[in-house]
């Protein structure tokens, strides 16, 4: 536990110190929210709620997925390349402790992204929910981001391709999962594809919560399955990388 806490503390410090990244991570979802909210008027009814609230959830999830899949992956790839991760494996910080620290840092950042997007939606578009609803939705978007953090870890193993791969996966998943255009507005084939996307399974329960519906167990099952898939793949690839020869 102590090694993990030490690593987490340092990781949080490093995240906040990376000003440009930090500001961009927060500005992207907020900027897109403000930009696109006016195209379809905020008061338009959609999926049992209003566009202003619906798109608030879309952009919060979009921001969280981006920060997890894209930046987490690139950072992990960089730390691997520096030899630092290899060295850490000689210290009492276990690989589980290391991954837990990275994921905890990511979750802290995700919570901040959600809070900022929601505050902007509240103050700019007057989105109001009951206290219970706010808490439920924030908790869902927060906890539900775990599979994406795991996906970030997986992408981080791609080395030099992590940057490109991360961006592709991030934009692809956002688009296909209906974070940009509501799934109901897509052609049938696209809808079928969307239903398999972790992004859809992530955002859908939050949209449902907005409409006063509960979280579907099926969505949880999908996200849990994806988490196991990503973590499993990461573990296999990690083991493969370890047997590769290195500089002697």
């Amino acid at each position, binding site marked *: 536990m*102590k*090694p993990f*806490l*030490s*690593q987490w*503390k*340092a990781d949080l*410090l*490093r995240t906040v*110190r*990376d000003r440009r990244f930090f500001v961009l991570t927060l500005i992207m979802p907020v900027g897109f929210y403000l930009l696109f909210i006016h195209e379809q008027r905020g008061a338009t009814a959609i999926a049992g709620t209003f566009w202003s609230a619906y798109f608030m959830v879309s952009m919060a999830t979009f921001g969280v997925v981006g920060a997890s899949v894209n930046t987490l992956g690139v950072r992990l790839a960089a*730390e691997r390349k*520096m*030899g*630092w991760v*290899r*060295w850490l*494996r*000689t*210290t*009492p*910080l*276990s690989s589980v402790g290391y991954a837990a620290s990275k994921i905890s840092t990511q979750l802290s950042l995700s919570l901040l992204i959600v809070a900022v997007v929601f505050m902007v939606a509240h103050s700019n578009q007057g989105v109001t929910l009951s206290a219970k609803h706010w808490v439920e939705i924030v908790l869902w978007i927060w906890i539900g981001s775990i599979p994406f953090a795991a996906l970030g870890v997986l992408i981080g193993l791609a080395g030099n391709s992590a940057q490109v791969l991360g961006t592709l996966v991030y934009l692809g998943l956002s688009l296909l999962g209906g974070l940009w255009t509501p799934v109901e507005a897509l052609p049938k084939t696209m809808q079928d594809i969307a239903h398999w996307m972790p992004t859809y399974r992530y955002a859908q329960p939050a949209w449902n919560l907005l409409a006063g519906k509960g979280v579907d167990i099926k969505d949880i099952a999908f996200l849990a399955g994806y988490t196991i898939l990503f973590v499993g793949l990461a573990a296999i690839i990690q083991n493969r990388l*370890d*047997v590769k*020869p*290195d*500089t*002697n």
Partner: protein
Amino acid sequence: MEPVISLNHVSKHFGHRIAVNEVSLDIASGQAVALLGPNGAGKTTSIAMMLGLLHPTTGEIRLLGRTPGHLASREKIGVVLQNVSVPERLKVRECINLVRGFYPNPRSLDDLLNLAGLATDSDMQAHLLSGGKMRRLQFALAMAGNPEVLFLDEPTVGMDVTSRRQFWDALRQYVGEGRTLILTTHDLQEADVMTDRVVVMHHGLVIADAPPERIKMEFGDRQISFVADDARLIHVVRQWAEVADVQTSGRQVTIVTSDSDAVLKRLIHDNWDIRDIRVGGTGLEDAFVRLTREEVSLA
């Protein structure tokens, strides 16, 4: 007492390349050991296997009585690897504190800063340190947990003379406390200064394992080569005590000796007709080649 590290017929293959070949080695507590050899000898691969970073293809390794890589033994070791840079956006002291936090009984921050000679750099950005200071920071990180066993892979590469001297002082203090040290180096002087046992590796094989004085004698040899018309000379010279080896190639004679001055004086004093005289050190690489050949002839 059980050795701190033991390698039992350990080999490591990378595809068809054999990096480490049937190495058996026991290192006792309190020993200071150098793995000496040219680049590609298998030193770094051996260290990586002792640390559990690589798995041996065949053979068995124990570190502190366990399979290498076990968390419990990681608390008792300190490591400096090659080609490692520290994370960005952390100050020197934050970086040291990060690593101190990994260990149950860490050394104090001030202690580590002084040990590495970084007291005045504690607020510098760690990843921006110069090459020599970066190596010293990594030494501080290796010492953070108050290790019983210290592994240093080419620790002084990139250090200037002052840094190196300071580093050697700190190491000597560590060794003086009766703790175990394993370092790799291709610098015989470093092995001589820091250790009481030198394991020479070449092409993945251990070709010598002896105190540094003995290795130095072996490596300190010089060569005298010349052209001699009188073949009787070879038989005479072979009897001389200071001559280790005589090789001939036609009329070209090469003498390997620990005392080139004495041999030359005798040759000239005895009035042998020799010409084109050249004297040179056998050098590390030559010595490795010679040791390897002896190993083969013994097998």
